[in-house]
């Protein structure tokens, strides 16, 4: 008891739900058991969007975390707010071998060769389908690298052959997915190479690529095989629940759900790459997920504890465990050899698709994620446009409004923060 009290508490904020959360708790437990100096206390802080401002606004108070997880697209903002001790600092001091960590993931969270934060949970957006259902209905499964029309075909068939009992397809009203349509179509969302070469001053949402994607959805809606679950985590829950209950055939979502999907149904899970526009090659999608940060408002020993924990969760074993438990890609090069993953792949070959997708992507600035502040606004605007389009609004108009709104936001953000 007194031993526990004498440990330095390391508060860890995260945004993981379901099995991810369980696994994080498990990591904390194991880590705490592995040493006697620190006590990591994981705390769930809601979804990615909510956490960003919490982190910013508790910074400097006793309520702030020592180590926290923050989503990919918040990196720019957190970096500018200067609230974290750069990971590079610890890496250099400890001569930590950063090369064992996936370079693609690392690249997302570094600036000028400096590691700002530690990539931790990295996902790929993929397309899921109920393979058993397709078999039952006698529908040919879509190819691994499907085009929009491949999916439309399957979706229509599901709806028709189940006499409407099973909905063919859903695409969540989700800005992240919207971004991926652009990435996959090799379109930049923001200028300056999606912000990689400078602070963006101009953005576009109304592009041939997004219009094509929306037309694709619209086509499905008109065919009656599409179901709209709305936006937000509620929508995500509903689509997954429906999928697991056999009421939905296909949906697009983060790879982070794989383990739940596997565990939730006896049906065989089918996975494909992110669908691409017909007649255009896929450019590949960006990684998703989040990274770990160490707050700079905590005493040295606390920061040290945080760093120890970061190192712990980045081990090959932990990362393998992590992928198996969730569906995020194990980032440690050695993880793939771990028995737990080997076993998973054997049982569910489709579980390998996300890593395959990532491995087959040729990185360029359009598929490396947006480095820009105000991505949350962008996502809201995109989601609104999607909702409008799903409910019948003219695609061009909806997208134009969103684009205009986003440009306004970007302008005022830049003005407010004196970015030139």
């Amino acid at each position: 008891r007194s031993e526990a009290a004498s440990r330095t508490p390391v508060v860890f904020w995260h945004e993981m739900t379901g099995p991810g959360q369980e696994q994080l708790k498990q990591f904390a437990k194991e880590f705490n058991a592995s040493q006697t100096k620190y006590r990591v206390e994981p705390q769930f802080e809601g979804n990615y969007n909510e956490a960003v401002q919490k982190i910013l606004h508790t910074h400097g108070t006793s309520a702030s975390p020592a180590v926290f997880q923050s989503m990919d697209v918040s990196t720019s903002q957190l970096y500018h707010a200067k609230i974290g001790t750069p990971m590079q600092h610890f890496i250099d001091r400890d001569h930590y071998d950063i090369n064992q960590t996936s370079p693609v993931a690392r690249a997302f969270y570094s600036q000028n060769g400096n590691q700002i934060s530690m990539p931790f949970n990295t996902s790929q957006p993929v397309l899921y389908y109920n393979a058993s259902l397709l078999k039952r209905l006698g529908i040919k499964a879509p190819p691994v690298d499907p085009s929009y029309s491949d999916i439309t075909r399957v979706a229509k068939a599901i709806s028709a052959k189940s006499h409407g009992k099973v909905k063919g397809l859903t695409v969540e009203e989700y800005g992240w997915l919207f971004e991926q349509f652009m990435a996959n179509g090799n379109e930049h969302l923001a200028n300056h190479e999606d912000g990689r070469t400078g602070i963006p001053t101009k953005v576009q949402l109304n592009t041939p690529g997004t219009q094509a994607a929306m037309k694709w959805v619209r086509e499905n809606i008109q065919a009656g095989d599409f179901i709209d679950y709305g936006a937000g985590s509620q929508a995500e829950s509903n689509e997954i629940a429906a999928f697991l209950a056999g009421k939905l055939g296909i949906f697009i979502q983060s790879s982070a759900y794989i383990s739940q999907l596997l565990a939730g149904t006896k049906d065989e899970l089918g996975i494909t790459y992110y669908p691409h526009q017909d007649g255009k090659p896929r450019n590949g999608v960006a990684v998703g997920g989040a990274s770990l940060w160490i707050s700079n408002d905590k005493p040295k020993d606390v920061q040290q504890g945080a760093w120890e924990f970061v190192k712990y969760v980045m081990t090959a074993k932990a990362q393998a465990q992590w992928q198996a438990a969730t569906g995020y890609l194990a980032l440690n090069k050695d993880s793939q050899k771990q028995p737990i993953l080997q076993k998973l792949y054997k049982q569910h070959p489709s579980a390998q698709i996300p890593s395959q997708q990532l491995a087959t992507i040729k990185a360029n600035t359009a598929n490396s994620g947006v480095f820009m502040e105000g991505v949350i606004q962008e996502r809201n605007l995109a989601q609104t446009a999607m909702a409008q389009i799903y409910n019948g609004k003219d695609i061009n108009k909806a997208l134009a409004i969103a684009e205009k709104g986003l440009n306004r936001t970007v302008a005022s953000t830049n003005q407010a923060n004196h970015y030139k």
Partner: protein
Amino acid sequence: MLESLPQNSNLQDPDVQSALVQITTSARWRKDSLYVTLFLGPSLLLLSVFVFWPMIKTLYLSLFLTDNLGHASVFVGLSNYVNLFKDPAYLSSLGATLLYVIAVSVLTIVLGMLLAVAAQQHLQGIRFFRTIFSSTMGISVSVAAIFWLFAFNPSVGVFAQISQVLHLPEINWLADPHFALLAVIITTVWMNLGFTFLILFGALQQLPSSLFEAAKIAGVNKTTQFFKISLPLISPTLFFVLVVTLIDAFKSFGLIDLMTVGGPNNATNLLVYRVYQDAFLNGNYGLASTESVILTVIIAIITLLQFKLLGKRVNY
């Protein structure tokens, strides 16, 4: 004047008291002001810190662009306001809010009154019904949201199931912009009902029975009794309920966050939710402050209107 008092005067003694009649006049004022400080002071202090000051601060922030950390950085005058009123999404939020507020208030009060009147009947076991009617009072935002989310669920919800059985067109309650607000309204009204019922019922119960006896004797029928005696007599309560429901409706946040997160297509993006989104998701404090000020002004205008239009007609 107080110096002329005998030093150890016993103020309880009536004789001494009357001897003091004149002197105490000013002493009483002093005593009263002591009471004023005691009775009013704490509330005034708290309100100053948590209501007045923030209002001023909000007003101030609304004239600025705010940086990453929420600090006022660039003075822009009224351009935040101008931009908002040019933003069709904001205007539709405004419309949705008004619709929501009016629908919620009217439905809550009418249904609450219906329940209250029904619960006035003297029947065996009426207490059981009263308890039932007030029960939604114990149901909080998140619980209500959970119950209704389930009911509205497009694949397994009761509504979906009912329409499937009856072969009615399936309504995707929460994802369809035409129905999402209605779904939230239904949930809000349901949640409000218990409390409204209880207040109206309580007020009806407290009415002096002699007046109803007089009315009964005069041959006044129940409907007239209700409209001509009960309503005027509980008009202060009714007014109170109206003000509360209206203000509370304007402040609705939880159900939105839990059920629709403002969507679909901003159909349920009520004003407070927008404030929250802009401030605590988008980190745009200047804009959020502007929205706060507008929200405040709207509530103030409506409350003042209520006081002006109804306050006078309320019988105290």
